[in-house]
């Protein structure tokens, strides 16, 4: 099985520890991981702002970097969804199509391909799980509160395998945190209010850590937590699953 990891640009630049944890975790689980070094970005920042048509060369580069693998694993639901839904390559559409069907978010790769039932991870803390919308509603990593359908959650399944970890309940299990890409600055007031409300829910239930599959949401929540001088921290799910 030939697996490449795609480390989103902002993770590369700001949260290298998330990329390292992803790589180490996969290697620990017996996967030999390739990191195409010329990778940059999925193109979502342009596309979500309405400029999908400017992302052509970024898309071509993605296809060039990630062709020839069985799976492409990414520690971000949002970037994964963007690739799945919007990656096209004018010169090599079959390659783009292959990538669209083999790109996977980290937790779904762990549950659906590796079928992980045990982990050696140890993380003795009270943890709140933030369900990022693109992973949840877009990739269907867990059941959505809007639908009349049986419950399941891939990230929660994995967190339950971590020794010592106590998952806290939330009043609103899958409300958006308000990051939303450019939304977080273009609609600053609502974005921050949404983030504050999400954090209040986690704090009210005693979270020491807020975790999730998307560092972008967590970066936004971290910014608010730090401004509030809160002792609660954010941590990517890869870091927890790789802990200890």
């Amino acid at each position, binding site marked *: 099985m030939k697996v490449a990891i795609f480390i989103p640009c902002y993770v590369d630049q700001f949260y290298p520890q998330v990329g390292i944890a992803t790589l180490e975790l996969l290697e620990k689980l017996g996967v030999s991981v390739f990191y195409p070094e010329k990778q940059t970005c999925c193109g979502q920042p342009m596309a979500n702002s309405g400029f999908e048509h400017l992302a052509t060369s970024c898309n071509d580069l993605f296809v060039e970097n990630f062709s020839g693998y069985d799976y492409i694993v990414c520690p971000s639901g949002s970037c994964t969804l963007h690739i799945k839904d919007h990656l096209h390559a004018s010169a090599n559409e079959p390659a783009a199509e292959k990538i669209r069907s083999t790109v996977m978010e980290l937790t779904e790769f762990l549950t659906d391909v590796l079928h992980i039932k045990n982990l050696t991870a140890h993380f003795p803390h009270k943890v709140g799980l933030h369900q990022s919308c693109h992973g949840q509603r877009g990739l269907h990593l867990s059941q959505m509160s809007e639908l009349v359908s049986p419950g399941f959650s891939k990230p929660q399944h994995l967190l339950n395998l971590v020794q010592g970890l106590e998952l806290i309940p939330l009043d609103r299990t899958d409300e958006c945190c308000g990051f939303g890409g450019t939304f977080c600055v273009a609609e600053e007031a609502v974005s921050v209010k949404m983030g504050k409300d999400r954090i209040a829910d986690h704090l009210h239930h005693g979270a020491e850590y807020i975790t999730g599959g998307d560092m972008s949401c967590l970066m936004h929540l971290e*910014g608010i937590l730090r401004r509030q001088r809160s002792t609660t921290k954010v941590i990517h799910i890869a870091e927890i699953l790789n802990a200890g």
Partner: protein
Amino acid sequence: MEAQQHTASKDHATLADTFNRDEPRVDWHDKTLWFVRQKRDKAAWQIPEWEHLRETASQIKHNVLANLHHYLLSFEQQAQQNGVTVHWAANAEEHNQIVHSIIQKTGITRVVKSKSMLTEECHLNDYLQAQGIDVVDTDLGERIVQLANEPPSHIVLPCIHWKKEEIGELFHKHLGTPEGNSDPQFLTAAARVHLRERFMTSPIAITGVNFAIAETGEVVVCTNEGNADLGVQLSDVHIACMGIEKLIPERKHLGVFLRLLARSATGQPITTYSSHFRKPRPGQHMHIVLVDNGRSERLGSDDFRNALKCIRCGACMNTCPVYRRSGGHSYHYAIAGPIGSILAPALDMKKNADLPFASTLCGSCSNVCPVKIDIHDQLYKWRQVLAKDGYVGSTKKNGMKGMAFVLSHPRIYRISGSVGRWVSRHMPFLVSNSLNPWAKQREMPTAPKQSFGEWYRTNKRKA
């Protein structure tokens, strides 16, 4: 309307910012609407086949949109056979003129109107008032916003942004209720007395239409207050105004929609009244005005056609985390929230270019939609259309061009990254400028010594 004129020039973000200056009020607004969303969830879970019901409704509407021409003609023919006068309006202006000319012929100037988002879309009240017609909205929530000289902030709950104490003050000023009395039951009773007088003295009733049945030529109006019925039963002339997308093929399809509508809207199993208006009673005149106003253009668009499936339940507003925290008026369009944000740009791209961006694309709206409109996907698609057609500012466009360039050149990306974390200066959500909206209420992420790529090259690169 004062509020509408006032808000027209400001964009969603600005209006939302103003709304957020009173945080306890935002909390109250959010909780009030979240409560409605929870009621909707409970009602939906009572129906084990809920998701099947949504799919069925979506498919029925799909059929309607694919054969709209046929259903419209069939509806018109049936309605005419029932003794109803059918009018066709290409746009809002024609609609308003038709309604006015019907009223004018009677020589009457007092009109009652039950809830109709179409007449809000067409600004009928303003138009009629300018022609000297005294029109009173008889839905309680609508009457409250009308007295306050405001547009509704929600399509099902028009005055959801008003607190009962404020309604007490408003009624004291306009209806002469005792100062300081904000008891909902008392205020409702006062409104009843006030509206009863209008019902008794207004021989013309305008209603909206929730569903129009092609098979029978009848229209169905759903209310909780019975105000549509009372208005019509007491009137000499009934004018029903509807968008051309309100059709359903046959009566047997109605049950699917009635089961979905109120559960999605408020969590009730069904609205208190589901009134069928098929023919005028002897001596009464009944008119139906069929309005296009951009709908047939949307019908021709693969990307945006599904928006016409909307049954105006408001579930997407109640679930929208942005709507709950920005208020309905921040959308500066007759229909607020996610559905309004995909309908408004179709009518006026320039004026409503901000609305598809007033969303995090979280997707909750599409999940609650009883007719399964792909709302958040359409928001994304509208963004592409607006950017391509030049409705997104040039600063943003140039920034995007620069970013697209760097992100498609790995070497430049790496170099820019290492010299001061290029991303922190160019990522649209982290752009630092003099105002730096990120940092107003948030700390910036701290840049690490090494990027992941640099770490990999140092520690992991395979020879």
